[in-house]
């Protein structure tokens, strides 16, 4: 076991996969000589050379399309989005080509590529650098969407994403890069499409992902003191959602609270509620409650920014209210 920071866990994943498969390569802005904005590719340039750790000019749409072509013809590119928000400039290549090309080519091509990088609401980075993009991309057919949340799952999931034969959008959270955890010394891979049960419980199911997992964990401490026993599930895969795990939990607790950093309108939570209504309506003892961030561009001001995203106290209160509801 070795204590590892999340950014380093990601780095290890890339390093190991590049080592085992020489068709894997990294491209993006400042990934090479500079070692990546968050140092996820540090020193890999020296180890693998400039073609395998390729510094691109700042032309998101074009270098994303270049990766699609490389993937179609047998390579396995990993794109680092310096900030995932910049990939809005590459939306065309991600949606039309990466996402849909396997279908439109009638199965002639596969697009094994990973698009990864920092996202989410950081600390006072201003609206454009604090986007919650998962909602935009969840509508794109042909994409897998994964959000890591701990050094352990970050490493195992990224390795799985690199090995997957489909385009995977891999979300990392800017505020989680310095999380520490003891990682196994042996090699491991974590499946992309399985939710993770963070804490088993019986009173209520809390569905969350990415940084909000940690806000939920904080809220749970308070809830435990009040004798409440929540089941916490980290969704991991935002597309497709793991309804086996979600459904089994609902059948146990009959109550659901969703905690997400995503915007409320058209968000991941909105999709989950709709799906729960479709699948498990009869199991519910109360309407599903959704705690999402506000539908506004993230304000720069620190206080307004805090008000924009869900805080542990709100989670605690919402769960308490739900458990207090008698049926």
């Amino acid at each position, binding site marked *: 076991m070795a204590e590892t920071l999340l950014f380093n866990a990601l780095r290890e994943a890339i390093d190991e996969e590049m080592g085992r498969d020489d068709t894997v390569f990294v491209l993006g802005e400042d990934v090479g000589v500079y070692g990546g904005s968050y140092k996820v590719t540090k020193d890999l340039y020296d180890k693998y050379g400039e073609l395998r750790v390729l510094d691109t000019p700042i032309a998101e749409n074009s270098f994303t399309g270049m990766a699609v072509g490389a993937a179609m013809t047998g390579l396995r590119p990993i794109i680092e989005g310096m900030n995932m928000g910049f990939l809005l400039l590459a939306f065309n290549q991600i949606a039309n080509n990466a996402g849909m090309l396997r279908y439109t080519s009638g199965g002639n091509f596969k697009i094994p590529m990973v698009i990864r990088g920092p996202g989410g609401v950081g600390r006072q980075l201003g609206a454009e*650098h604090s986007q919650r993009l998962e909602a935009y991309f969840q509508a794109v057919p042909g994409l897998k969407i994964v959000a890591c949340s701990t050094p352990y799952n970050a490493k195992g999931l990224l390795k799985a994403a690199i090995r997957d034969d489909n385009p995977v959008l891999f979300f990392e959270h800017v505020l989680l890069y310095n999380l520490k955890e003891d990682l196994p010394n042996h090699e491991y891979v974590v499946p992309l499409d399985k939710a993770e049960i963070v804490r088993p419980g019986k009173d209520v199911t809390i569905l969350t992902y990415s940084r909000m997992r940690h806000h939920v964990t904080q809220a749970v401490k308070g809830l435990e003191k009040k004798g409440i026993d929540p089941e916490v599930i980290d969704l991991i895969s935002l597309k497709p959602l793991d309804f086996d795990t979600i459904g089994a939990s609902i059948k146990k607790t009959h109550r659901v609270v969703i905690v997400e950093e995503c915007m409320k309108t058209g968000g991941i939570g909105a999709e989950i509620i709709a799906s729960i209504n479709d699948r498990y309506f009869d199991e519910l003892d109360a309407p599903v409650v959704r705690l999402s961030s*506000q539908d*506004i561009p993230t304000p720069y*001001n620190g206080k307004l920014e805090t008000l924009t995203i869900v805080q542990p106290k709100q989670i605690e209160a919402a769960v308490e209210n739900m458990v207090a509801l008698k049926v």
Partner: protein
Amino acid sequence: MVQERTLPQFQAPAAQISPDEGLLLYEDMILGRYFEDKCAEMYYRGKMFGFVHLYNGQEAVSSGVIKALRSDDYVCSTYRDHVHALSAGVPAKNVMAELFGKETGCSRGRGGSMHLFSSEHNLLGGFAFIGEGIPVALGAAFQSRYRRDALGDASADQVTACFFGDGTSNNGQFFECLNMAALWKLPILFVVENNKWAIGMAHERATSQPEIYKKASVFGMPGVEVDGMDVMAVRAVAQEAVARARAGEGPTLIEALTYRFRGHSLADPDELRSKAEKEAWLARDPIKRFEAYLLEHNLADEGALKDVRDRIQTTIDDALTFAEDSPEPSPDDLYKYIFAED
């Protein structure tokens, strides 16, 4: 260190400038420099947050270009926007308050360092994404032409200055917008501040033709290379381009060879640029150089220059007090400004 480009010749003695104009340029450059130094101090003291990109070293470009404009002309900037905003006339206190996230900031604390706006001063914005300001600037220039030629308003001869870096000149929007500007003869100056680096990416490693000004020729547009450490040279080039634009003769691409004295942003460890390279450029400090020029040509004496520096020091101190004492936006206003009805 990569071979430095040979600087274009500039006939300094032929340049005409009055003592008042000289002092105005000097004051603008000092304002930019002192403002940024104060930002660095505040950031390192933990009073300013987020991504903060300083402009130190590049002052001759902002002052040389923007002071060649009229107050009703437009300026469009990037994330390195503080000094462009100041040159465009946005008061230092409102820029500083913005960086403190205050309601009195020029973007009411909602924008931050990379999103400075002022409709009053025709500052179209700071844009955090590379190149995204270029089409916006193009739109402003189109508007001038539209008012003049489609609506028959003869007074609509405003010019737009659009600033961006060498790294940004590799972005598709640059080429797309050059094409349209030339096609429609829009009154716009594309000002590339070639400071040789895009964060950690050396210009030569990202660009097949490092002489950016030459790219104008493809669009049938004048492209000019200028010493971006010489405010007189920048001003002369800008004046000519502005005159062309105002006369309806279309856009100009200006490549100013300059250097940023600090890291890319205040969070950048700045480990890649060699000491020798930095020293060579520091020795060409545009402010020291212009001081020498003013003295040599008897346009100002030491006392007058010191007066300017003292005055600006007071402006900066006042701006800081104003920013610190200003209220934060009210939590009740969290939803304000989403729609124009607000």
